[in-house]
């Protein structure tokens, strides 16, 4: 089975290496705080069969030192003192609110799975936040987003969905009470969120790939997602050197057709309204990748300049080829404007559907049947294997769900409710999490009936014409094969690159560090939560716990 979303990149956990030791002289061993940190900037451009162009920026900051190692391995709060590349404004929040892992995304627009395939990082429209240990309200100040609307009525702790993506031991990762997830579908994203997000980058917008981020092309895109992910990861197999990773990513889907011409041509200038003129001097890696999976001979479109390097990975449907440009080499000769030229007009055809598709919509209308409507979910499994997925629905309290009449239309699909939290008025929302087995080549339909509670006049959201927004539902599937999707290749390359440079430091590290703990204690847990659990019920969890592709949301409005 392959290709189901890749929020998590399991194999990357072990490949990172840290380079870059700034202060080498240690006066007293153990007292010196070393700045072991590295920064990389990458851009993946993937022309989509629908005529759109998908671009994904990824800025990664890795950081480790003695204190961080200790906090990660012993599950202590982070205690940062001397910041270098890692942004202090964010670090202070992590420290103060005892965060171990944090994922925040701000998204405008809807990812069209059936047309665009799977993105590198999934995000539902609006704001989404999931963190470990504590909910972080200070973030709303940092990102100028209305995250302060997050309260007990829309915060949940799902049982199986969202496991830690970083290193944890099984008992920690299975403890869902440490995890909070919330989504604000109403939240708009605009430049006021982009500016503070850019400020967290070590080079700001002064140089490097971040100079391409001009608000106008960004916010006129079909889909735009801004995100920030922090997690502890492992550098080596034994997990002797845990590293804190901060990934800031930005995804865009644009369509810049010249309608007259009908070609899918794009250049850096047409995508971002500027060519690349510099590289962030602090970055160890600064690269642009172009996905040329169906275009290995450069027949469908030509790249100018020709890619100096092409990397291919995976087999069958999971095969991916990337053209790799090293920006450092390219910007030396003046502004670098990567161009793709299509000799032929774009032809709209049938786009092969992804293996798993989910759509959700509201059925029923008006006030007949006591104004009972239903949320209908269609899960389409188009691959030849059986899939077991977790489906998570987080709904506001003012919907009254009727579970006794909820049902699956396909009888042979097995279903199991892993967690159900019933709503309490004005106190907490619904959490409905089910595990569904989808037979091969099938469509499974699920209906959840609901009515709507009466609200006090102050509880209605502003802008009555919008109606009510309901957060996206989520479908998660454990990836059984280590399949691709874009960034995995990047990570591989990255790790290779970093490894070469860091061999010397690595050996030093190992000498100076005594493995004080039994390595069994800190299960490095490739598939987070992993480990060999024998308890009942956990097998199921094990099967499902993995990766997720956030599916579909209905921006849904009820007449007020």
């Amino acid at each position: 089975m392959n290709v189901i979303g890749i929020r998590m990149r399991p194999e990357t956990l072990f490949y990172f290496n840290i380079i870059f030791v700034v202060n080498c002289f240690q006066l007293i061993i153990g007292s010196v705080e070393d700045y072991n940190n590295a920064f990389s900037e990458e851009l993946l451009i993937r022309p989509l069969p629908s005529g759109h162009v998908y671009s994904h920026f990824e800025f990664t900051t890795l950081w480790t030192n003695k204190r961080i190692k200790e906090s990660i391995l012993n599950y202590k709060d982070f205690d940062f003192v001397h910041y270098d590349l890692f942004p202090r404004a964010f670090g202070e929040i992590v420290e103060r609110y005892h965060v171990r892992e944090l994922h925040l995304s701000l998204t405008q627009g809807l990812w069209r799975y059936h047309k665009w395939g799977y993105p590198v990082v999934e995000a539902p429209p609006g704001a989404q936040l999931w963190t470990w240990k504590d909910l972080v309200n200070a973030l709303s100040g940092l990102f100028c987003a209305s995250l302060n609307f997050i309260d007990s009525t829309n915060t949940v702790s799902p049982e199986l969905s969202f496991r830690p993506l970083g290193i944890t031991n099984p008992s920690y990762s299975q403890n869902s009470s440490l995890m909070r997830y919330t989504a604000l579908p109403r939240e708009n994203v605009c430049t006021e969120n982009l500016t503070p997000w850019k400020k967290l980058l070590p080079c700001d917008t002064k140089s490097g790939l971040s100079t391409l981020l001009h608000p106008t092309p960004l916010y006129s895109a079909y889909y735009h997602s801004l995100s920030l992910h922090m997690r502890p990861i492992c550098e080596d197999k034994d997990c002797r050197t845990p590293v804190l990773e901060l990934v800031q990513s930005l995804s865009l889907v644009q369509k810049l057709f010249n309608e007259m011409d009908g070609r899918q041509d794009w250049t850096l200038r047409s995508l971002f309204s500027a060519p690349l003129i510099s590289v962030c001097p602090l970055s160890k890696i600064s690269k642009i990748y172009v996905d040329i999976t169906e275009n290995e001979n450069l027949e469908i479109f030509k790249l100018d300049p020709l890619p100096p390097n092409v990397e291919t990975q995976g087999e069958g449907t999971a095969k991916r080829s990337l053209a790799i440009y090293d920006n450092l080499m390219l910007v030396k000769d003046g502004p670098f404007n990567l161009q793709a030229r299509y000799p032929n007009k774009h032809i709209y055809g049938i786009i092969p559907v992804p293996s798993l598709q989910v759509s959700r919509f509201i059925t029923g209308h008006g006030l007949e049947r006591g104004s009972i409507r239903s949320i209908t979910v269609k899960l389409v499994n188009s691959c030849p294997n059986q899939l077991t997925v977790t489906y998570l629905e987080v709904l506001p309290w003012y919907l009254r769900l009727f579970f006794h009449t909820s049902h699956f239309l396909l009888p042979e699909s097995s279903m199991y409710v892993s967690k159900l939290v019933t709503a309490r008025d004005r106190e907490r929302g619904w959490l409905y999490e089910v595990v569904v087995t989808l037979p091969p080549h099938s469509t499974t339909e699920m209906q959840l009936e609901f009515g709507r509670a009466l609200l006090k006049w102050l509880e209605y959201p502003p802008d009555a014409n919008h109606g009510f927004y309901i957060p996206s539902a989520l479908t998660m599937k454990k990836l059984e094969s280590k399949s691709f999707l874009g960034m995995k290749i990047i990570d591989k390359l990255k790790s290779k690159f970093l490894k070469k440079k860091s061999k010397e430091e690595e050996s030093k590290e190992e000498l100076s560090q005594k493995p004080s703990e039994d390595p069994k204690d800190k299960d490095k847990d490739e598939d987070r939560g992993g480990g060999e659990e024998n308890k009942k019920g956990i097998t199921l969890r094990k099967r499902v716990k993995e990766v997720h592709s956030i599916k579909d949301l209905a921006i849904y409005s009820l007449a007020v």
Partner: protein
Amino acid sequence: MLAKEILFFINPDVDLNILTETIHAMTFNPSANLNPSKDLKITKEIIQNKGIKAMRQVPTEPAYDVTLTLMLPQPHFLKAEWDVSAAVKDYLDPLVDELKDIVELRIRSQILYMTSMRINPKWSSNYKHYSLPEKQLPLTINSIEAKLGSFVSTRPSLHFIVYIPSDLQTPLYIHRNDGTPLESNSFLIPRWGGIMIHNPPEKLIEKKGNSSLPLTFQIDSQWVMKTVIFHLHKLFPIPSLNEKDVKYTEQIYANSLTDWQINGLARARVLSYLNSIKITLQSLCDLVGEISNMVVSDEVAGWVWSAVDDWKLCLDASQEGRLEEATAFCKRAFVSSDAAFFHPSMLALLYFPDNQKYAIYVPLFLPVSIPVVLSFRTVFKLLNFKAKKD
């Protein structure tokens, strides 16, 4: 740590006049020895007289965030290496430790890349360096302040910036108004912190043409940290002797604070706490008195009561010279008075003072009432008309 008694060792040959002057300067520091309950006026006067020096002082609070920032505007050209943790350990930690009973300092450091100050230095041909005139100094921090801070902590923060000038401004020296360069090449920003301009070694700049970039150099930790400590002394301020007094005293512990300095600081801070708590509580009182229907929750009332109690204890302790206890009580009182004043429930509802209610309702009801009043005339007319008819 805070001693009640201080032992003086006096040289028998000393001139008595000088002795009294020096001891007076050390113990009867005017801002440190006032009876706060009576003398609010006097402190104000002193502040007026002392002028700039008093404005320099940071607001009195139990804890501060001290941030050391290394600014590298051109990391691709110049790279500075600085072992901050060692520098902090060697220079600042002893000071933090000495002051820990009086004030808590939380030290953090960060490096800011690609950010430069908006300054316009001029080439000074006399001195063969770039000069930064004194009058530009107040504007330096405006462009960088947004990047320095964090939003999380409510403690006041003190920033110390080590600025490495960019390629086209090296070497950079601050010039006085009369055009002479400032030896320290650093300046203090009142209530905020300090900025040090750290030029790379001249040799390094000379060979910039023929060596690979970035050029790397070591930050002079000793100079930076001494300046930071000097600025910290001025910001609190930690009492010190005038130059004329210094020559009569033996400087035995040159690197650490003497007991009388710590005592003086503690005394000044207790005084300042007593005043600010009083002002906070007073304005809270005024506010509640002014808005008669304001809801004061039990929690807020509790904070106020504990602040008042601690304030009293602090006052008693300070009058008896128990400085350590006084500091502890005052800190507690300060925290609870602030908690009461800034409690979210105090602002949960919108309150209008009575005079504002009139201001809102009169323009609404007056125009509405005019046609109503006028219609009475018509009614009377009608009644009159009917009466006549009858």
